[in-house]
C-alpha cells in the first residue's frame, strides 16, 4: 500500500513584478488540474492570522514557490514552521531556460501563460518527488 501525504504549495505574493504573478498562476494551475489533490496556503497568514497555516506546514511537506531570489515564501515557512520539503525559485528557472519574465504583472499574455504551465510542471516534479519519498 502506498501512503502519499498531502503536500502544501505556498506561492509568494510577489506584487512587485511579473515573476510574482507567474509564481501565483503556476501555483493555481497545480490546484486546478496538474495536481488537484494539493493544498495551497496563503503566505500572509503565516504571520497575520490563522495558526492553522503554520501547523499545516509543520505536519505536512510544503513547497514554496518564489518569484525572485529573495525567496520570501521559503523564508517564512522556515521561520514559522520548519524546513521545506523542496522549493521552486522561478527567477532561477527562467534564467536557466533563458526566457524573460512577464512584462505585465496584471495581465499575462499567451506566452506568459505557457511559461506558467512550464513552471507548474516543475512544481509537479517536486510534488511527485516529495510524495515518492513517502511511499510505504
Amino acid at each position: 500500500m502506498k501512503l502519499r501525504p498531502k503536500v502544501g504549495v505556498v506561492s509568494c505574493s510577489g506584487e512587485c513584478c511579473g515573476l510574482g504573478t507567474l509564481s501565483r498562476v503556476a501555483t493555481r494551475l497545480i490546484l486546478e488540474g496538474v495536481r488537484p489533490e494539493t493544498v495551497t496556503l496563503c503566505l500572509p497568514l503565516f504571520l497575520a492570522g490563522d495558526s492553522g497555516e503554520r501547523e499545516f506546514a509543520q505536519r505536512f511537506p510544503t513547497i514554496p514557490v518564489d518569484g525572485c531570489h529573495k525567496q520570501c515564501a521559503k523564508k517564512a515557512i522556515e521561520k514559522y514552521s520548519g524546513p521545506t520539503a523542496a522549493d521552486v525559485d522561478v527567477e532561477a528557472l527562467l534564467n536557466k531556460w533563458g526566457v524573460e519574465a512577464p512584462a505585465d504583472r496584471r495581465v499575462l499574455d499567451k506566452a506568459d501563460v505557457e511559461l506558467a504551465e512550464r513552471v507548474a510542471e516543475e512544481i509537479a516534479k517536486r510534488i511527485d518527488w516529495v510524495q515518492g519519498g513517502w511511499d510505504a
Partner: protein
Amino acid sequence: MTERVLVIPCSGIGKPFGSIGRDATFRVVDELRRGRAETNCLSLLVTGDEEAVRQVKDSLCIAVDGCPMECARKNIEMAGGVVAAHMRVMDLLRENRGLRPREVTFLDGDGEKLSAILADRIAAKVDELTEARR
C-alpha cells in the same frame, strides 16, 4: 514621509477576492495613478525585510483585503506602518450582489467588473490622501 501612497493587497490565493484586490491594486499603481501610488510585496513584510518595513513606515498605506482575515492590514500594522485607508473586497461584494466572481487564477467578467470598481475607489482614496497631505 514619501510623496507616493503605498497600496498593499493581501493577494489571497484561495478565493477570487484576493485576486480582485491584487488586480485592482495593479490597475491603480500601473495605470490610474501611475507615479503617485506604488505597491510592494506583502511577502517582504511577512519576512521582515528591512527595506520593505522602512517603506511601509515612511508611507501612507492603503490596505486591500480580500477576506475577513485582513492579512494586509494586520501585516502593515505589525510592521509599524499606518493604515490610512482600508479597502475590503467583501464589502464591495455586499454592495454589488449581482456580481458573482468565481475564477481565481484569471478573473472572469464579474471579477473584472469588481476589480474596476475597487480600483476607482482606491484611486479616489489616493487623491484624497495626497490632497490632505498638502
